[in-house]
């Protein structure tokens, strides 16, 4: 079927290999560049949507009338495994700040656990959700809201409810359940949530300061969809 002659003259020439390899590499990079141009705006929009929907899980829509992504402040912070800074999104009704939402990162059993948490101005948790993790499937992944209700136990808690000594899993004398067969994962989540509340407590004045971001929000406007990453 194949009519190929194995020793076709010019194909044995070294230059042919170089040109072939170079040509294919060029074609592949051109295709990748084209693909990137075609998809990057769409991918950024999807990432912003993802961020928005994860923020919406911890800050109910009824609590704010502004675009959370447009009202973001960077806070210098060393806490929560995010050295440098942490971006805090502020929910407002009118000019009044009703809630703050931000991400925290903790070390789980399999790698980094990314959380998003919502806090009201008094420091009470509105909700915590896991955005991404690499915990053991079937064991550690019960921290996901879609797989169990465990993560909802944080709603309504604050730094002094339970008392600081009780901010741990039951095995460590704390207030929160662990999973059968997995203690490290819930322990890491509890620790990260507590760190998140401490982060809020230490930057509270800065975060709730009403005036400068109000103008920033007015400048960017509610319609602008700034990509979160």
């Amino acid at each position: 079927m194949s009519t190929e002659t194995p020793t076709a003259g010019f194909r044995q020439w070294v230059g042919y290999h170089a040109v072939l390899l170079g040509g294919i590499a060029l074609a592949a990079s051109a295709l990748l560049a084209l693909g990137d141009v075609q998809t990057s705006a769409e991918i950024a929009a999807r990432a912003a949507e993802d961020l928005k929907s994860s923020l919406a899980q911890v800050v109910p829509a009824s609590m704010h009338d502004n675009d959370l992504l447009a009202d973001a402040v960077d806070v210098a912070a060393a806490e929560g495994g995010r050295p440098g800074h942490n971006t805090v999104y502020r929910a407002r009704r009118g000019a009044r700040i009703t809630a703050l939402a931000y991400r925290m990162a903790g070390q789980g059993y399999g790698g980094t656990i990314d959380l998003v948490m919502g806090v009201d101005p008094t420091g009470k948790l509105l909700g915590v959700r896991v955005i991404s993790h690499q915990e053991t499937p079937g064991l550690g992944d019960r921290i996901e809201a879609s797989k169990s209700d465990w993560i909802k136990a944080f709603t309504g808690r604050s730094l002094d409810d339970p008392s600081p000594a009780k901010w741990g899993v039951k095995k460590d004398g704390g207030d929160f359940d662990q999973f059968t067969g997995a203690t490290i994962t819930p322990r890491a989540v509890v620790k990260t949530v507590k760190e998140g509340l401490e982060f809020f407590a230490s930057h509270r004045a800065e975060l709730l300061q009403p005036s400068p971001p109000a103008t920033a929000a007015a400048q960017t406007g509610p319609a602008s969809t700034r990509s979160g990453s």
Partner: protein
Amino acid sequence: MNNRYLAIVRDGLWSNNVVLAQTLALCPTVAVTSSASNGLGMGLATAAVLVISGAVISLVRNIVTQEVRIPVFVLLIAGIVTLVDMAMNAWLHELYKVLGLFIPLIVTNCAILGRAESFASRQPVLASALDGLMTGAGFTLALVILGAVREVIGSGTLFAHASLLLGPHFSFMEMELIPHYRGFLLMVLPPGGFLALGFVLVGKRLIDRRLASRPSLVSAPATDGAMA
């Protein structure tokens, strides 16, 4: 002609199955199959890449020389996987959120380079695409079987979270076979993957032996071969 395509189908699905017969691509196989749904997702994504890479490599087969074929194939496969990854992230975002983790892993799947080298670089486009589809289907079959075995023993469920992968219409597939099951951790962890794989391989050999001992079923493929 038909017999040739039939042989491609039979090879890809069963007699030359990537995982069950060639024992290739074990890394993604063991890593991903902690549940049947995960296996299904990885299998489908890999099948898509196999079809595209088979067709593309078959298209360029006449200009690629023996000496540089491996870098060319690797480059093409990596490019295709990256394009699929970007396209899914942009336009099939819900599916990407479930499968996204697995897609970059496909580059490292030696079965794809294996099919490129042993089939697509020697055969016409249609046959190569069919071979990609059938190899992919065989891979999916093996992953779903392995995932199902591990999931039933490890978690007592079958196709849990299938609706996340396939959409809400498929929620009927989600079954809890053993209610109040405490779970058998070993089968969910990677060692369980190797254990289950061993038993699945034994199962395939037993079925093959059973088939070989039945003359009526053997004679049919034999005449196929004679005619081809």
